[in-house]
């Protein structure tokens, strides 16, 4: 690492900005890209799991007691002890049930709440099962992924702050984009433009992401510290306390049996009055079913509030009485506002699309920052340090167009393998994930071999894969965009049009790159 210039504040910040960007830019791009995908994770689920493309329930289902019966019928002869229900909503029009039985058997059931019929569990992780976990912990084992993403978030905040400091004229950048200039200049224009215009969003989204797991992050040292030292502090900041979930032991004698639906309605009525807006139950946790100490925790999430689910009401299932009703403190509400802001669980389509655009702007900012660095360095260091320049360039291509390409490949392979097929003995969802990482690895190798030309090659492949994904979806499900519009499958319409847009942008990028020998960041 080059020594820091021996100068004053601003050049020092420039140095920090450059190095934090070059060292962590690839990681930040992956997190931003996966986060952007996660804005529409439920829609990606619908696209990748065609059996869940159901009509949205007109009214939220209330037949919670029949869900109990469905869970019992799924494992005849076994005693159902615990049940969690993710309720149906407009973006995921079915209930997801996790049932646990007395002999510790676990079952995941997906239920169409309009017909009360079981839907076969999808053989694809989709957006919520893969792209979203990649965003929050890179699906690394143990605490490593969480830790890496936390430091990446701190680095992102640092990059935003130092980026502002090293800028002379922030306001002038608002309107400056000169595509006709040399690549070095126009990529810097794009970097500054996307960075300044979306600065409030980028800062808030990074900070709120950090705050979703705030308690957990600062308690990391106490998890890895020796137990004798760590334990009391872990108790001070432990999650159970911070998140305040209700727990109690079973009594061991039979009891319970109160109807569930009226209790859930009671909770919803309480919240409606409290918040002045409809707050449907979105998560229900029933424990010790059939036991005298049985209870049901109902959590609500108001679709028209930024603050994400702070509400939890716990009912005693023997009497139907409320055992716990949490009213959040101001501090908690602030944290839950930040959490709601980050998790985008509210119902506001315009803002959801703006999140998507803001996320893409973040990807563009990171990618153009990289391009600016490598174009600037190529002249200066190509002779003296060819390996360094080559390495960072390959890293950039693999991190930017490689991740985009791997995501497209992930979509394509999902539509190529039929549901239930297991080529080579692997279930489909394993093949999908292997394809993602395989394609990614291939782009990295390709970038190392082809260098600057890799941008152009990969842009063509991205365009091809995007179009293939649209066609394959049509062939395998019959839901071409027009059919999707007619059936009100807006998730499919959105996904197909984004794939099409992706193809158009990739073709444009590939053609421009074909005309010049310079590299240009592929706007995703």
């Amino acid at each position: 690492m080059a020594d820091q210039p021996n100068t004053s504040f601003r050049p020092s910040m420039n140095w920090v900005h450059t190095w934090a960007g070059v060292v962590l830019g690839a990681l930040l791009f992956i997190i931003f890209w996966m986060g952007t995908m996660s804005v529409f994770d439920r829609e990606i689920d619908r696209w990748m799991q065609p059996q869940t493309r159901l009509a949205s329930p007109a009214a939220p289902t209330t037949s919670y007691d029949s869900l109990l019966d469905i869970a019992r019928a799924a494992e005849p002869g076994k005693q159902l002890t615990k049940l969690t229900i993710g309720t149906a909503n407009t973006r995921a029009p079915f209930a997801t049930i996790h049932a646990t039985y007395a002999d510790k058997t676990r079952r995941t059931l997906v239920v169409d709440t309009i017909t009360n019929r079981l839907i076969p569990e999808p053989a694809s992780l989709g957006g919520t099962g893969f792209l979203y976990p990649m965003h929050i912990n890179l699906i690394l084992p143990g605490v490593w992924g969480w830790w890496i993403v936390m430091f990446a978030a701190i680095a992102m905040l640092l990059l935003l702050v130092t980026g502002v400091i090293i800028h002379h004229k922030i306001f002038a950048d608002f309107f400056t984009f000169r595509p006709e200039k040399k690549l070095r200049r126009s990529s810097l224009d794009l970097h500054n433009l996307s960075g300044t215009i979306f600065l409030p969003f980028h800062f808030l989204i990074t900070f709120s992401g950090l705050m979703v797991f705030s308690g957990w992050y600062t308690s990391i040292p106490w998890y890895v510290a020796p137990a004798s030292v760590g334990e009391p502090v872990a108790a001070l900041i432990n999650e159970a306390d911070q998140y305040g979930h209700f727990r109690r032991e079973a009594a061991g004698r039979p009891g319970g049996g109160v109807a569930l639906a009226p209790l859930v309605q009671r909770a919803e009525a309480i919240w409606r009055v409290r918040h002045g807006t409809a707050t449907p139950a979105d998560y229900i946790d029933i424990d010790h079913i059939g036991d005298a100490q049985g209870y049901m925790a109902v959590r609500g999430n108001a679709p028209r509030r930024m603050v994400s689910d702070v509400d939890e009401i716990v009912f005693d299932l023997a009497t139907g009485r409320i055992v716990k009703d949490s009213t959040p403190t101001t501090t908690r509400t602030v944290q839950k506002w930040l959490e709601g802001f980050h998790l985008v669980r509210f119902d506001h389509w315009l803002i959801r699309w703006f999140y998507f655009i803001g996320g893409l702007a973040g990807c563009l900012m990171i990618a153009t920052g990289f391009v600016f660095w490598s174009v600037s360095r190529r002249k200066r260091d190509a002779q003296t340090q060819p390996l360094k320049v080559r390495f960072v360039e390959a890293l950039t291509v693999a991190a930017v167009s490689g991740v985009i390409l791997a995501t497209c490949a992930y979509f394509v392979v999902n539509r190529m393998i039929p549901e239930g097929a297991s080529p080579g003995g692997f279930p489909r969802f394993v093949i999908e994930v292997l394809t993602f990482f395989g394609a990614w690895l291939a782009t990295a190798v390709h970038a190392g071999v082809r260098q600057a030309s890799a941008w152009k090659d990969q842009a063509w492949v991205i365009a091809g894969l995007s179009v293939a994904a649209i066609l394959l979806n049509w062939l395998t499900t019959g839901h071409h965009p027009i059919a999707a519009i007619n059936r009100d499958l807006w998730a499919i319409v959105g996904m197909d049009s984004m794939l099409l847009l992706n193809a158009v942008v990739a073709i444009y990028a590939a053609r421009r790159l074909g005309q010049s020998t310079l590299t240009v960041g592929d706007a995703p």
Partner: protein
Amino acid sequence: MTLGLLMLAIVSALASAILLALSQERNWRIAYGPGAGRRDRMRRIGWPFALLTFALCIARDGASFGTMLGLFMLAAVFVTVTLMLAFRPRWLRPVALPFALGSE
């Protein structure tokens, strides 16, 4: 009602972005040509339009969503105006006309 407020907010955001862009010398030259516009006046009108955008968005969606919507909407029109300046600068000329010096 909500659609109307949304349309008004978009118009107000556009007005704000165009005026603030033209109040910069470089952008004025690109969009209008030589000379300078009434920079102070454009800025004095441009900023209140930005505030009006927030007000309309908050009136439509409440404090939390409204503020977010206002921020995003301004970001979106700033990008739009920047792209217009880069590719179709003459489209901004009609807005510039009333602020050209010597046109009174």
